[in-house]
């Protein structure tokens, strides 16, 4: 494959502030490359440099083997079409006229539009699905519709390279996917697309490759799964993040939690989960900075998988196996080491009753998460009901949102206890 775009050591300074520093990367022909990164990372600036709006202070950009700096804007506009992030058009041009403007690079000074031009415009209107808007003033369509109008304009421009700046930022879920499906089709036809995309999940799902920008530099480049990791996302976005695999699309999905300066909390929390009941709790507690232990859960349970991802101390049992004495002891060890124990709204079955009994036997403060009603999740009869009732009497009952603060209070209470009565061995 040949490089459609070759960016070599490009630095850009805007208003005395360095926005891009020594950015070098290539984009292969017929690929969709996503630019991801936090606000102000330089994504838009990089796009504006590729299409020649900005001239780099240093370095060069070649599109289709031609140096952009040496081309006039007409020549560049036949190679690169751009869909801007927001176009505040206050003039009441009909949508069709806006799309027709995409043909500007192909018209002569006095030239009138040819049949080819008109056909390209109609095709673009059709592909961007804005036919129903064609005769409306562009000022009378919504922000999301306008984005597709400008995508249609870029399609009418009929260039080998397409630059999209946040093409889905104003779109609803359905149109986000439809727009990106269209972009994927264009790439399938051999066009090269570079898109700044805010939504990391969408970026991972649609892009062949990503470039992670942060502070004007490319921090990671390659396939989405290699670019989006807990560490890179945390470093670039400053947010606690968990990258997992999306169950439906099978691509990377990023869950971020606000970065809290007090996030690195001390304390170990044991979580009783199973059947994915603990998944949201584990994410929250991990993001809050607690050390975690999990047990006992089935070895293939989603909670177990997440515990491994989060590097939590994990006790498992084979699939469908009840908790035996050895497992119960291992969990009791975990409970002794923990400053607090969180009991998720797990299904109470004869198999995991020993765990709940171990929780009641240990001296560790208990936080009970109030989720599904007991009768809806108890298959262990009177024994199960009694265990849940005693847990609720002994522990603090909170909903999922309150779990971090409840755990924090429990941990603080442990810390204030005199050392000689510390129940931990």
């Amino acid at each position, binding site marked *: 494959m040949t490089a459609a775009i070759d960016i070599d050591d490009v630095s850009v300074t805007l208003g005395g502030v360095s926005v891009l520093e020594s950015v070098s990367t290539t984009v292969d022909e017929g690929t969709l490359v996503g630019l991801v990164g936090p606000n102000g990372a330089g994504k838009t600036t990089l796009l504006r440099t590729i299409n020649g709006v900005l001239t780099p202070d240093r370095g060069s950009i070649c599109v289709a083997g031609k140096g952009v700096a040496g081309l006039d804007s007409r020549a560049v506009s036949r190679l690169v079409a751009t869909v801007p992030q927001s176009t505040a058009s206050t003039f009441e041009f009909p949508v069709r006229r806006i799309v027709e403007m995409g043909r500007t690079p192909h*018209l002569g000074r006095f030239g009138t539009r040819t049949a080819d031009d008109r056909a390209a415009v109609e095709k673009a209107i059709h592909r961007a699905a804005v036919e129903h808007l064609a005769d409306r003033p562009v000022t009378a369509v919504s922000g999301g519709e306008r984005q597709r109008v400008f995508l249609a304009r870029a399609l009418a421009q009929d260039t080998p390279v397409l630059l999209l700046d946040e093409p889905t930022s104003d779109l609803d879920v359905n149109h986000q996917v439809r727009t990106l499906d269209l972009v994927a089709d264009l790439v399938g036809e051999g066009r090269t697309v570079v898109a700044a995309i805010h939504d990391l999940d969408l970026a991972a799902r649609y892009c062949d490759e990503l470039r992670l920008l942060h502070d004007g530099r490319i921090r990671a480049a390659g396939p989405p799964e290699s670019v989006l990791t807990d560490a890179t996302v945390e470093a670039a976005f400053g947010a606690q993040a968990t990258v997992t695999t999306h169950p439906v699309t099978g691509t990377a999905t990023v869950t971020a939690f606000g970065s809290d300066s007090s996030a690195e909390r001390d304390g170990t929390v044991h979580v009783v989960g199973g059947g994915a009941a603990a998944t949201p709790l584990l994410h929250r507690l991990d993001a809050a900075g607690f050390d975690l232990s999990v047990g006992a859960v089935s070895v293939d349970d989603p909670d177990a998988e997440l515990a491994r991802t989060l590097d939590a101390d994990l006790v498992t049992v084979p699939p469908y196996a009840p908790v035996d004495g050895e497992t119960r002891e291992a969990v009791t060890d975990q409970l002794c080491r923990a400053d607090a124990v969180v009991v998720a709204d797990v299904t109470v079955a004869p198999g995991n009753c020993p765990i709940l009994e171990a929780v009641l036997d240990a001296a560790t403060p208990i936080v009970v998460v109030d989720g599904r009603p007991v009768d809806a999740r108890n298959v262990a009869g009177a024994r199960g009901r009694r265990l849940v009732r005693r847990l609720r009497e002994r522990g603090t009952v909170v909903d999922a949102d309150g779990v971090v603060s409840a755990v924090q209070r429990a941990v603080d209470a442990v810390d204030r206890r005199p050392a000689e009565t510390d129940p931990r061995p």
Partner: protein
Amino acid sequence: MKTSVRTGAWIGGLIGALVAVTLVSATIGPVAIGAGSVADIALASLLGGATDAPASHRTIVMSIRLPRIALGALVGFALAAAGTVMQGFFRNPMADPSIIGVSAGAATGAVAAIVAPVAVPVALPVAAFVGALIAAFGVYLLASEGGRTPVQTLLLAGVAVQTFLGAVVSFMLVSAGRDIQEAIYWLMGHLHHSTWGEVTVATAVVLPAFLGLLVYARDLNVLLLGEEDAHSLGIEVERTKRLLLTVSSLLTAAAVAVAGVIGFVGLVVPHVMRLLVGPDHRILLPTSALAGASFLVATDTIARAGAAELPVGIVTAAVGAPFFLYLLRKREVQSP
């Protein structure tokens, strides 16, 4: 094609309106001459035929009324065209042909020529024209940096230069002595004593300049989307801006040089036409120019129809402002 049919219909209608206004205007004055007689005299002069109209009527129509009407039409045409371009260029509804100091420069040159101790023949329009271009060029230079001319800077530099030149004009006026009346009369805009010579000179500037703008109408449309968009659609933004500024300043300078400062035509007429035909400059520019021509001929007719002739600038503002306010309330004048 649909657009060209619509454009043709509008232009045809507006040319018809201009002819009608011209005929009506030529009948009005101290000596009543019928419309038929006016048409007869005009056609006879144009085509070299004979007419049975009295010689005095021929003189009044051909040497007094028609040159004045023709000059009024040209000035209105030029101002409305330049105003259309400036409003598009600045994407600002308050832009008018004088926004970058053209009128202020012309006024400075004209008043200087009027109060100058030595009277030079034809010095006044030449001084006004040169003053206008110097001011516009100065504003452009002040607003440019590193090969770029941001429109906001241009706007602010224009306001500053206009204010400064206003001070210069005021100073010349207070020290003008007996010339002050002539100077003030010029500043208010006037079309009296128009000659075919002025019409010829003004046409020589206005017509090519207007055709030049027309060629760039499509580029101006694209520029309305914003400079970055225009650039990515292949417009050489800075070069196009320079060209549009130069040509519309030429148009305005020519109009101001022969007719003084006539306000409001270049502001209101493009607005009204944009309401009627939409923002596409391929149709907006010619229709605005033609409507501006009719508007100025009509207002000038009102200005000279009374017992004492008024400067036409007073009439354009007095007629234009209420009409504009009416539109503003009724249909919400769109900011471009």
